[in-house]
């Protein structure tokens, strides 16, 4: 169970929120010159990192406001919560806990098959 600190209401249970997928995805500014492949990329492709992930949340059972968060998807630890109009924090502000791309972190993962 994750606790999420809504920037407007404070800390609440994750079940009060809905996830909006990757944050900072910008609609192409030149739609007429885009190829099918580029459109496909914009519509269907989203980052899916194991580790630091920028994502959107909406406090659906609360203030109903959207905001952004930085979460480590390998531990579910929320590293930063910020409002939509605030600047995207730099990736170098956060420490990635993973030793290899598919490895397991020391805490947070339930994958006991490969946890040393």
């Amino acid at each position, binding site marked *: *169970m*994750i606790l999420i600190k809504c920037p407007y209401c404070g800390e609440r*249970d*994750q*079940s009060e929120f*809905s*996830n909006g*997928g990757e944050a900072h995805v910008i609609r192409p500014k030149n739609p007429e010159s885009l*190829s*099918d*492949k580029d*459109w*496909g*990329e914009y*519509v*269907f*492709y*989203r980052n*899916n*990192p*194991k580790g630091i*992930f920028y*994502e959107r949340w909406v406090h659906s059972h609360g203030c109903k406001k959207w905001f952004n968060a930085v*979460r480590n*998807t*390998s*531990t*579910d630890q929320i590293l930063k919560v910020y409002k939509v109009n605030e600047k995207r924090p730099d990736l170098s502000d956060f420490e990635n806990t993973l030793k*290899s*791309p*598919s*490895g397991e972190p020391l805490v*947070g*993962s*339930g*994958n006991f*098959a*490969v946890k040393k």
Partner: protein
Amino acid sequence: MKKKYSIASILKNSFSDNENWGKMWRNPNPKKHYDVIIVGGGGHGLGTAYYLAKHHGIKNIAVIEKGWLGSGNTGRNTTIIRSNYLWDESAYLYDHAVKLWENLSEDLNYNMMFSQRGVLNLAHNEHDIKEIKRRVSANRLNGLDTMWLDKNEVKDLVPIMNTDNLRYPVLGAAYQPRGGVARHDAVAWGYAMRADELGVDIIQNCEVKGIKTDNYKVEGVETTKGFIKSSKIGVVASGHTSVLAATAGVRLPLQSRPLQALVSEPIKPVINTVVMSNAVHAYVSQSDKGELVIGAGTDGYNSFTQRGGYDVIEETVRAIVELYPIFGKMKMLRQWGGIVDICPDASPIISKCDVEGLYFNCGWGTGGFKATPGSANVFAHTIAKDEPHKINAPFALSRFSDGRLIDEHGAAAVAH
């Protein structure tokens, strides 16, 4: 050494207290070079290696697994098998798998405990009825054995079900008698044993850290046991596929999420079929040991923690208890999660990509187990011939730019 299992071998081994069965597969050190490397030692990956060796004459193959065989989603699913998908492409793919399942125990001489006990998909409202009847009709046109059952027929099949006195009453169901369950470990072990006999190296506890490419051509994989060269690499790593693809500079339209399941304490037989409900997010069957095997939905956010949130389980258990009031006081023994890779159209990707020699079999999302033999079979063809089999041709990556999506959200939903 070919291992044959028979009544004679069981009798013979019983005289030595079953101490002398021997190892089912070797545990080799990786060679420097393989013709084909399969990344991921689950059912799909081991099956791919088996069919590559058996049907396509490729012998120098390695399967690389970061944990033990079947430690990922192969050992974490609820083992439901069916093929009642809406679109023609999916019906051919999933029924190809069901047909292989039907002979898999004989083919591998290993008991899959494949039990065709039937699968019910419940309808709880007017819209469900329309959607499910449409799917039943589509299935029948594709030669599948799906049928519509009304409420009384459902009640006859599953007498313990509460069909009337609940928030979303049961109004009918789709029923596929050829559907059922199988033993998930046996799939991984059976394929592993027979692939090993054909000379495939199964390398466990060895993590692939990256895929090395040069000028859009694969060169090999970097692993915890060193660099291994190969000109053909098949990635079948479910939830971690997009992470591995990224090391080769390939982007895939996948999102990884935890999907949970739980089992109860064992009880006497009470339910002899598989019952799924998309609307109330729950599916249940009873294992041969007597445990109820209950599947939940996916969490609402991307995550690689193989646990999942309790609120998802709560929702599922609430639906189960309402549908089957007699389960109300049962204790649950175990709960776990697996990381599933979900495609935007809820259909898999079995495809080549822009990098020469790199193949992906992924995006199975919440329902890959049922397809294991079929998926492995056509993926082996794709790797060996460097072109897709006609069954998996529609499941190419290109569908995300040419728009030929195979939208199976209705058939896949939460359930699998």
